[in-house]
């Protein structure tokens, strides 16, 4: 255990919050899918990887600004999510929950290793000139792409929240996640809601991939770094709770970077899993959740 200086501590807090924003965006998609369909989407990490590669290739091959490729990665992942829901998951909606989880695991194994086959396991990084500068604020040094990623993550979360809260379609999605039979009786087309939810969930994590790509390595297995964290966040925030997932992301980001300041090496993540198991055991409805049942 090391005692960090005050500036390092502040730096860790800022870094943690910025990274937490991206984690939130990954987790929100996962939470939405879980909330509506009660499926733990193991393919979430591979969706993120595809979002990262979309941005990477668009930048490397066409020279298009990474943030502009949001306009591509969001629809591409939305459609992919929709297709996977339509042609695979929809076939086993009535099967036990393990089977749905395992199906997404199969999808994830397939996508990730197909990517490994096509793109090789190499780590790639994007060199974007205007993003390589760090911004200095007082004693803090802040990386620009992380700030941009954080801001976009907040904006996208707000948009999604507004959509779920104030549009008819969004209300239908929330209704379907809270009361399946009831929403059927008022004429909500559940199948369509499931397509949408899975599509939106995938689109969120695709956007997270795009936002992460400029400051992280891009490789076929990069998704696994984020997906387990996303599980942790979703459980912290309460499964299906979007706002909970947002704050859960910030908590995990903070825990990780503060852990790194105090504890050497890989053990920083240990704290996150420890919190995770504690929440699972003592407050499985999540930190912000009300107890169901």
């Amino acid at each position, binding site marked *: 255990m090391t005692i960090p200086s005050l500036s390092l501590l502040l730096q860790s807090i800022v870094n943690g919050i910025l990274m937490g924003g991206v984690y939130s965006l990954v987790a929100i998609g996962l939470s939405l899918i879980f909330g509506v369909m009660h499926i733990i989407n193991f393919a979430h990490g591979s969706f993120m990887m595809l979002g990262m590669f979309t941005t990477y290739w668009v930048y490397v091959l066409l020279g298009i600004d990474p943030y502009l490729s949001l306009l591509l990665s969001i629809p591409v992942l939305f459609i992919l999510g929709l297709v996977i829901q339509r042609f695979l998951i929809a076939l086993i909606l009535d099967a036990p929950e393990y089977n749905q989880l*395992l199906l997404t695991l199969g999808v994830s*194994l*397939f996508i*990730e290793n197909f990517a*490994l086959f096509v793109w090789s396991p190499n780590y790639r990084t994007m060199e974007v000139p205007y993003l390589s500068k760090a911004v200095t604020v007082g004693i803090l040094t802040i990386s620009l792409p992380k700030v941009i990623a954080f801001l976009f993550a907040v904006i996208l979360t707000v948009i999604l929240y507004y959509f779920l809260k104030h549009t008819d379609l969004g209300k239908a999605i929330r209704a379907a996640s809270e009361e399946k039979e009831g929403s059927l009786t008022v004429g909500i087309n559940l199948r369509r809601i499931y397509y949408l939810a899975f599509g939106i969930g995938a689109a969120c994590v695709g956007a997270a991939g795009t936002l992460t790509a400029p400051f992280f390595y891009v490789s076929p297995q990069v998704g696994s770094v984020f997906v387990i964290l996303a599980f942790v966040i979703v459980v912290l925030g309460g499964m299906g709770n979007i706002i909970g997932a947002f704050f859960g992301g910030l908590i995990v980001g903070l825990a990780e970077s503060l852990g790194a300041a105090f504890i050497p090496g890989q053990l920083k993540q240990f704290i996150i899993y420890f919190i*995770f*198991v504690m929440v699972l055991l003592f407050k499985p409805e999540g930190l912000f959740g009300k107890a169901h049942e």
Partner: protein
Amino acid sequence: MSNGMPRMRNILVIVAVGIFLVILPRFIGDYFVHLVTTVFFFGYLAMAWNILGGYAGQFSFGHAAFFGVGAFTSSLLQIHAGVNPWIGMILAGIAGMLVGLFIGSLSFRFGLRGAYFALTMLALAEMLRLIAVQVCTVRYPLGINIPIKGNSLLHFQFTSKVPYYYIMLIMMAAVLCLTYVIERKKIGSYFKAIRENEEAAESLGINLFNYKLLAMAISSFLTAVGGTFYAQYYLIIDEEAAFGVMVSIEILLGPIIGGAGTVFGPILGAGVLEFLSEFARNILGGYSGIHLMVYGAILIVVIIFLPSGILGGLKLAYSKLGKRE
């Protein structure tokens, strides 16, 4: 199986398969001996998982925790205390079982079920992996190497692959028998009752906590013993091979593909996975992810078309054929 004829037939089939497997290494080369040993090995782990995940219905996504604890316990004891690997194997099983009892009593006490239990197990394996990473990067940057003692049954090390084949065959057959006994005895019915409906099982007077914990103890002990075998087979172990997420996934794929909660499903699934992925590797070349891609595709197909695994599908087809006749 109450009448004599099918029983006689079953015994004959088992004896024939047994003799076949015992003499098999004489007729095949090293490569196939390795392949079949791998099938036995994953079949063994699959059956160990199956007792907890298949019979008792407690879906574990983190059996790598037990596997890794087993592999590390016997290896480290051997290196630092000179403990014989056979004794290490028993100690490894006990260590794995203690971890299992610890996490089991926590999660079953608090009534974790379904996805929550699966995620708890995943987190347990990840926590142990992180500790192992910490230990390994500092002390064993090249992995934990077991000192080479040459060809010796006493030291559980062989220059040929054939002795490993027989050891694994015995271990696999033993767990197969154990599974069969569980299936036939009251304990198996209790496990299944818990799997199907916990409330109903409890109202019948089955102590949920004790029986879940029993399944956990058996499963974690056996899985950890498998970890020791792995370490002795390759004579090297590192944190990824011991505690990695892929280990947990490979352990549970066998029973899921073959048929969870059945006697022969797990070994069947392990065999199908191993042979198909080897086949794909031969066709598509040695790309590192090929076998996992095949696993993914098989998993998708099985989950959609054969929700009770290959064995379940075969049974269904068999009974349909029977009706037609």
